């Protein structure tokens, strides 16, 4: 398989646990065992910078390739209101103009969207109400792979 036109970008901080695994899997099936893979921090692009009490210290952004005219797949753990993805698209476009951008998430909390954003690739779609929380644990960090719905 040829993923020459494709680049994978994980959204910091929690999307990168999934994107690390996806990137590794894709590498194993590509012709020359490589794929352009980066990490994107969206802190400076949030729309609630001065609405939450605590200002956020950013995580690392690491995109060491050009996104110009590429097919970029953004990856995050949970899709909820869509505001993070809106910020991620704005951040991404400051690096260049991708040919198209797709979205992959592990969990899609549908019916919770505040912006017109939908995923292209979904692990599991779940129905939740706004007061619930979805927490994803990763073996690499939390010693277990688990998704928990908290009331």
């Amino acid at each position, binding site marked *: 398989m040829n993923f020459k036109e494709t680049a994978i970008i994980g959204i910091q901080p929690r999307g990168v646990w999934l994107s690390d695994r996806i990137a590794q899997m894709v590498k194993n099936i590509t012709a020359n065992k490589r794929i352009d893979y980066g990490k994107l*921090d969206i*802190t*400076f*692009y*949030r729309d609630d*910078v*001065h609405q*939450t*009490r*605590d*200002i*956020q*210290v*950013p995580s*690392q*952004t690491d995109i060491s390739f050009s996104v110009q005219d590429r097919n970029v797949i953004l990856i995050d753990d949970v899709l909820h209101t869509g505001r993070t993805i809106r910020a991620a698209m*704005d951040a991404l476009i*400051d*690096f*260049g103009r991708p040919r198209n951008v797709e979205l992959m998430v592990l969990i899609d909390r549908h019916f919770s969207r505040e912006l017109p954003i939908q995923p292209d690739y979904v692990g599991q779609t779940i129905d939740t109400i706004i007061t619930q929380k979805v927490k994803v644990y990763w073996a690499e960090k939390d010693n277990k792979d688990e998704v928990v719905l908290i009331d």
Partner: protein
Amino acid sequence: MSLSVKHLLGIKELNREDIEQIFLTADNFKQVLQRPIKRVPTLRDTTVVNLFFENSTRTRLSFELAEKRLSADTINFAVSNSSVSKGETLIDTVNNILAMKVDMVVMRHSASGAPWFLSQHVDASIINAGDGTNEHPTQALLDAYSIREKLGDLKGKHITIVGDIMHSRVALSNIFCLNKLGAEVTVSGPPTLIPKHIEALGVRVEYNLKKALEWCDVANVLRIQLERQHKPLFSTLREYALYYGVNKQMLDSLGKEILIMHPGPINRGVEINSDVADSKQSIILDQVENGVAIRMAVIYLLSGKRDMGD
């Protein structure tokens, strides 16, 4: 997580975690500054005033650029063409500016303590861009950040500060900052320019420049500030250059390579020679570059504090 202070008045009030948060945030902004689009939309809702009651080129430009890179609106104020010359007080000047919906104040003033005084009387976050002979916190942060970039963790590193320690807010802020990060500091210069009892701040004093340079990993060479000397503290600039000017011949005689810093503006041929200032060992222009990222980090981290009380 956020800074423990509402204003950046000095390094003295910061703790180690604050400084490390500023450095981590500056790492991200440094990366932003290397992209084709060197701007983030973070502070679209913020207006910053740059109040400079004392001359400045580098610091004012650096702050202004930092604010613009964060998408903040900026207004500039220089004392020479303002109502201060008509006798308006500092508090009145600032409250009038804040009444126009300004959120943050960056201030340089020739009086030590002026930013602290202001912080007691107005609601906005104040960033000290240099006050008299007291502190110049963003300069110390960018100095330590530049050392960290070249040498890694500052813990245990040896830094010598050379020159006019008496009048230098850069020296005082650097001493506080380097001590908090675990570095060891020596000051060197003519006895008339080294304050008595400075050892109480946790620094060594070494009047012999060569010995002070042999000891250190980094030498931060300060400008001779003739404008702050109300009576002569050394006989001539030529004599000063002879004993305390850093030149290539002296650096070559050390038997090791040290980094050379200078906060600018440089008096070439006085405290530092051109063959040093322009050498590979000099990180003077890295300091200037890092200044924008550090100031972006400080403005960003303090911008969340503006609706909080004290």
